[in-house]
């Protein structure tokens, strides 16, 4: 299907309706003409022919089955005879015309064209910033819901009609225009608004690496400035994506490997990361930290390999259980077998191991491994890979220490990258930090905001995001400290319930956990964490000059021009 030429559904209808309409006109013409020729009588009984005007009137109401009777005078027998012919002719004509129209409306291609047209129209009219989402699977659903909660618009492309239809059922606040099409085609992306200035970013979250690659290339060439987030599971495709400058390539398994390594290395930093990148409002449970010792790894596929490397780098001993010998002649100990049964697990010395990783591609097998392993050794730390989201109830019932749900990992990563770009550098600092520092920070923040995932946002001090503060600071204004700014706009003695984690200056320097007397300069970008209310209050302070003035100085400035004039005169 050629998407760029989809502007003319109406033309398609007209083209298909040509023959029926021509037939209808002909039938009307024959009927009217016949009625003016057939002999009749006038009101006085004199022979007279019907005029065109009356004939057209009569045929119009007869053909449309309204039927007022014989107007203007009673018909002669000859006229009645002709009217019988007219009635049946007109029934035929309407049946043909309406039948053709319905056949056209039932036509799959036509319906598709109609849907595409409607989608293109919705996207064209979309005047708010939006994200383009390719692939509305489990990950897409999580991301869409979270963005919707934040008031961001989303445009979705999904190849499976069933999944796309689910969009209407998920109870989102805003409409999500959705198209059933292959997102790998540039025309489809263009139709979905890739080149619109309102498009903020592209997320390639289909479960096909090739399609994601195609989306990445199309984005790079058609809209080079847009950030593209690509899900990718194979190393080769990831390298290909990276080769033309795709900035965000998300491999869920690699990401989990990183997380596990971080959790082993610095448990508090990992908790902090989970707390900051989760979906706002979800509770993060402080869970058990992974122990150090021997790990048994069942299933040595792509994911197994990544995890084995991560564990190895943290200095753990790894024992593999797989039916096939490891292909790369690895130095880890290998036990042939299937982790679902006790013999292989016992052979791998599960009783003295500290953790087990079940990462085969089969959910039932993974659960079976975990249950068996835990029976043999109740203290094991269990990491289990969940492949299909539909098995979620099973995984929830089995209380593992660290479930690996790829869709959730990708969704969190996407949201973190898209909504708070500053989070990434902060997390890098976090990953490199020492355990005691991270632990203190975690205690302080969770003590203040609780274990629920708080709103994390960033603000840039520029004319668009903070007009009032920017205007105050721009021509070498007064010094404004972080502490002075973050105050309640109703009672400035109270400070706002939020905290700056990280500030990046436009000269490239950055400050981790800035102190309260940090002087803000135009162009600074702040990463903040706090309550939703604090976020709204701060936004008002940054936007409204009067509020800002009160927060900084304590003067309650009158709003209007006249009051400003009057108060100034009063002061002098």
């Amino acid at each position, binding site marked *: 299907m050629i998407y760029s030429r989809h502007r*003319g559904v109406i*033309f*398609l209808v*007209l*083209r*298909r*309706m*040509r023959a029926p*309409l*021509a037939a209808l*006109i*002909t039938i*009307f*013409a024959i009927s*009217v*003409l016949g009625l*003016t020729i057939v002999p009749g009588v006038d009101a006085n009984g004199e022979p007279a022919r019907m*005029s*065109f*005007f*009356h004939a057209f009137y009569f045929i119009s109401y007869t053909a449309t089955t309204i039927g007022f009777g014989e107007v203007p005078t009673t018909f002669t027998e000859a006229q009645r005879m002709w009217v019988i012919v007219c009635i049946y002719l007109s029934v035929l004509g309407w049946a043909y015309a309406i039948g053709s129209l319905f056949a056209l409306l039932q036509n799959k291609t036509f319906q598709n064209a109609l849907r595409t047209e409607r989608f293109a129209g919705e996207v064209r009219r979309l005047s708010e910033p939006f994200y383009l989402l390719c692939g509305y699977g489990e990950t897409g659903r999580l991301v869409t819901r979270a963005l919707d909660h934040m008031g961001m618009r989303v445009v979705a492309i999904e190849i499976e009609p069933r999944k796309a239809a689910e969009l209407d059922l998920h109870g989102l606040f805003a409409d999500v225009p959705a198209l059933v099409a292959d997102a790998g085609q540039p025309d489809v992306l263009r139709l979905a608004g890739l080149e619109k200035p309102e498009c903020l970013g592209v997320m390639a979250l289909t479960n096909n690496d090739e399609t994601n690659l195609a989306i990445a290339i199309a984005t790079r060439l058609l809209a080079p400035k847009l950030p593209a987030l690509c899900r990718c599971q194979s190393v080769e495709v990831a390298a290909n994506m990276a080769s033309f400058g795709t900035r965000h390539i998300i491999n869920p398994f690699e990401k989990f490997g990183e997380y596990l390594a971080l959790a082993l290395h610095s448990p508090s930093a990992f908790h902090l990361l989970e707390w900051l990148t989760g979906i706002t409002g979800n509770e993060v449970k402080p869970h058990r930290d992974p122990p150090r010792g021997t790990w048994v790894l069942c299933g040595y596929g792509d994911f197994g390999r990544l995890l084995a490397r991560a564990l190895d780098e943290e200095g753990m001993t790894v024992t593999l259980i797989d039916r096939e010998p490891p292909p790369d002649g690895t130095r880890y100990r290998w036990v042939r077998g299937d982790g679902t049964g006790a013999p292989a697990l016992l052979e791998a010395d599960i009783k003295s191991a500290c953790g087990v990783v079940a990462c085969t591609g089969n959910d039932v097998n993974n659960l079976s491994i975990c249950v068996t392993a835990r029976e043999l050794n109740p203290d094991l730390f269990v990491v289990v890979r969940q492949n299909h989201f539909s098995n979620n109830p099973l995984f929830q019932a089995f209380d593992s220490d660290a479930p690996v749900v790829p869709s959730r990992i990708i969704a969190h990563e996407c949201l973190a990258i898209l909504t708070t770009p500053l989070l990434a550098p902060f997390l890098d600092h976090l990953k490199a930090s020492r355990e005691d520092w991270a632990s203190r920070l975690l205690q302080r923040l969770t003590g203040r905001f609780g274990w629920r995932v708080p709103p994390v946002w960033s603000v840039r001090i520029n004319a668009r995001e903070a007009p009032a503060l920017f205007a105050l600071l721009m021509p070498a204004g007064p010094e404004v400290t972080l502490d002075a700014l973050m105050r309640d706009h109703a009672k400035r003695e109270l400070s706002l319930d939020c905290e700056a984690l990280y500030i990046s200056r436009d000269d490239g320097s950055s400050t981790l956990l800035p102190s309260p007397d940090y002087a803000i300069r135009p162009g600074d970008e702040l990463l903040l964490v706090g309550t939703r209310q604090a976020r709204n209050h701060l936004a008002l302070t940054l936007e409204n000059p009067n509020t800002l003035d009160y927060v900084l100085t304590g003067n309650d400035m009158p709003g209007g021009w006249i009051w400003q004039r009057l108060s100034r005169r009063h002061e002098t």
Partner: protein
Amino acid sequence: MNLEKVVFGFFIVLAATLNFGFFVGELDNAQHHDIYELFAAIVVNLIATVLKFGDRTQIGAIHLSTSLVADLQLIAAAAVWAWATHIAGTGLDAAWTAKVVSLSGGALFANVVSVIILIAETIMQRR
């Protein structure tokens, strides 16, 4: 030879000829203008319009618009005729006849344009 082209050309030319047939004669003499011819002109014009539906080319668009103009003028002429004979009570006198015929004259001009486009299109294709 293409039957579709034959039918298309037939209706366009027939619309113009019927229109001309009704128009020709003294402007205000009802004897020179047969109402059946006006009826035929309207019907053929409507069919010609429908046949032009669904062509997305530039020339197709102009074709359609000339036809729509002719339809509008002819239907206006028919409405004026119906008013004169049935509603005004004066019958089809010289003044009313002149109105009807001059309206059909406007339609004739649109039909001529339509025929010219048809000829131009044919010449352009050189086949």
